């Protein structure tokens, strides 16, 4: 419980620092939001009035406090280019990106864990050699290129899905998932390779541990030693890796969404960057950062579950 409280305090501190850094970055850029909203033909008086209205003349810290308070209440500001609430713009995009990340995470876990164990168990066998080499190559393929290859092979040649034929989760859940499987696979592939490799190495080194010898001395067979004793120990570094991979995948999904024409956070982020629509960019960046920090927090808790030795110092 104390562990939880300390981690929670750390979480809130990090959230504040991160949001302040982002706020600061967008506060110091040249260019005046009021001018940007009104256009260059606006009279100085009108600009000044809007500045006052937006609270831009207040000190930085005060502006940050107001912004973060609004943010927590769900008011993320107003878009320069669309003149609508940012919250409204991104509300239905967040589930799409989340779903994409969740599906690819699911794929990583269900594919890499059995594969890593199999490799370790039949070390130096034919399958192991093939997977080790394949892993090395797959790790070098950027997700957007594997996305293109998947589009070519599964979409255009095998007709398993229609490239660009995204179906909203509001229309049809099943078809949404069916379409999302392919971009999720593209994001997951390099992580599957890394995770498999890590688990293989980890299992092999744990198999040399003293407690393994103890387990054999009690009459366990190799399978029982592997699944009952080694696996939980071997998963500890994999959990750390998966936590780091998750934050990477959230960012990776921004690119892969473009390959598969998925209208998630990535699309709107890119449009806003091109339009220099800072409130939107700022809100999305903070949202993604919060998501990543939250994931790390959950991984820390999970870590405690897997490894009883973890204590807060």
């Amino acid at each position, binding site marked *: 419980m104390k562990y939880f409280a300390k981690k929670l305090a750390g979480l809130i501190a990090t959230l504040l620092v991160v949001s302040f850094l982002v706020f600061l970055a967008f506060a110091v850029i040249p260019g005046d939001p009021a001018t940007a909203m009104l256009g260059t033909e606006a009279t100085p008086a009108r600009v000044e009035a809007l500045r006052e209205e937006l609270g831009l003349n207040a000190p930085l810290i005060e502006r940050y406090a107001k912004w973060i308070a609004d943010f927590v209440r769900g008011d993320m500001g107003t878009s320069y280019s669309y003149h609508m609430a940012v919250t409204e713009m991104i509300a239905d995009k967040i589930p799409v990106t989340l779903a994409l990340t969740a599906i690819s995470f699911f794929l990583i876990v269900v594919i890499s864990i059995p594969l890593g164990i199999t490799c370790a168990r039949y070390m130096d066998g034919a399958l192991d050699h093939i997977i080790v080499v394949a892993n090395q190559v797959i790790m070098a393929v950027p997700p957007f290129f594997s996305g293109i290859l998947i589009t070519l092979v599964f979409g255009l040649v095998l007709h398993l899905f229609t490239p660009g034929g995204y179906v909203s989760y509001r229309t049809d859940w099943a078809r949404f998932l069916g379409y999302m499987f392919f971009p999720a696979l593209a994001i997951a592939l390099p992580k599957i390779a890394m995770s498999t490799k890590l688990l293989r190495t980890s299992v092999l080194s744990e198999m040399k*541990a003293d*407690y393994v010898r103890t*387990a054999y001395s*009690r*009459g*366990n067979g190799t399978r029982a030693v592997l699944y009952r*004793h080694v696996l939980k120990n071997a998963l500890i570094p994999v959990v750390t890796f998966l936590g780091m991979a998750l934050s990477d995948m959230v960012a990776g999904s921004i690119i892969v969404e473009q390959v598969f024409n998925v209208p998630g956070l990535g699309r709107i982020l890119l449009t806003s960057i091109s339009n220099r629509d800072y409130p939107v960019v700022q809100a999305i960046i903070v949202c993604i950062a919060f998501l990543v920090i939250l994931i790390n927090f959950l991984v820390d808790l999970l870590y405690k579950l897997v*490894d*009883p*030795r973890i204590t807060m110092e």
Partner: protein
Amino acid sequence: MLDVIDLNLEFHDHLVPETVVYDFDLHMEPGEIVGLVGESGSGKSMTALAIAGLLSRHDMQKRGKILFEGQDLLTCRRSELRSLQGDDIAMIFQEPMTSLNPVYRIGPQVEEALRIHSPGIDKEERKRRAIQMLADVDLEEPERVYDAYPHQLSGGMRQRVMIAAAMICGPKLLIADEPTTALDVTVQAQIVKLLKRINREKKTAILFISHDLSLIRQLCQRVVVMQGGRIVESGSIEEVYGSPRMEYTQKLIAAIPRCEKKYARRQSGKSAQSAKGGMQDGR
């Protein structure tokens, strides 16, 4: 009960095959405590692992016979070997710090041999026996220990836990591979006392491996001395300690610190008597 005949262990992991144990012979009666002594690298631990059936590396060759109640452990099937391991033959190790699985609680680890070899026993009964066993090895608050993780216990406590886990099925042979080396001197004495009591109460034969002659003297009836993979001397404690035939054994005995040697002699005399007395009481 246990007959090791002409055991040879040879490793093939280097260019030149390396023999670590030559023509090892050992006979053990039920309920007997035999000491196996030698400096590090003398092959004693390898011999112990071979008898426990834990040397299953592919890059080595095992020749000879290890007969446990007439069954050869070197040639029998893996499943037959496994049905003996943990049930009739149990083992404890040098490093109590790492020999327990760090991510599981003590309870399931103590019960494990019981779960494997007596699947008919239900959960509650297993737990009851495990807690009883933890109490039997002189652990205070056995219920608390049952729910603890290994890292929450001291080295001595962990070695007691290892002994409890090894004894849970009431094995006929307990192989103790330098079980006290990693522990403090005071804890060493306690563990030796505990092993002695277990041997007396449960009639478990113990093969006690150590490089410490004074410990062997406190605990064992017979001793086998190894050097460079070969047996150089064997016999009863009195014979070997009273008139060591080999120069090597003399050196080993001479290496026992002096005052401790006197103490050990007195102790072994006493314990030989008390062991006799105990046997008479038993009758």
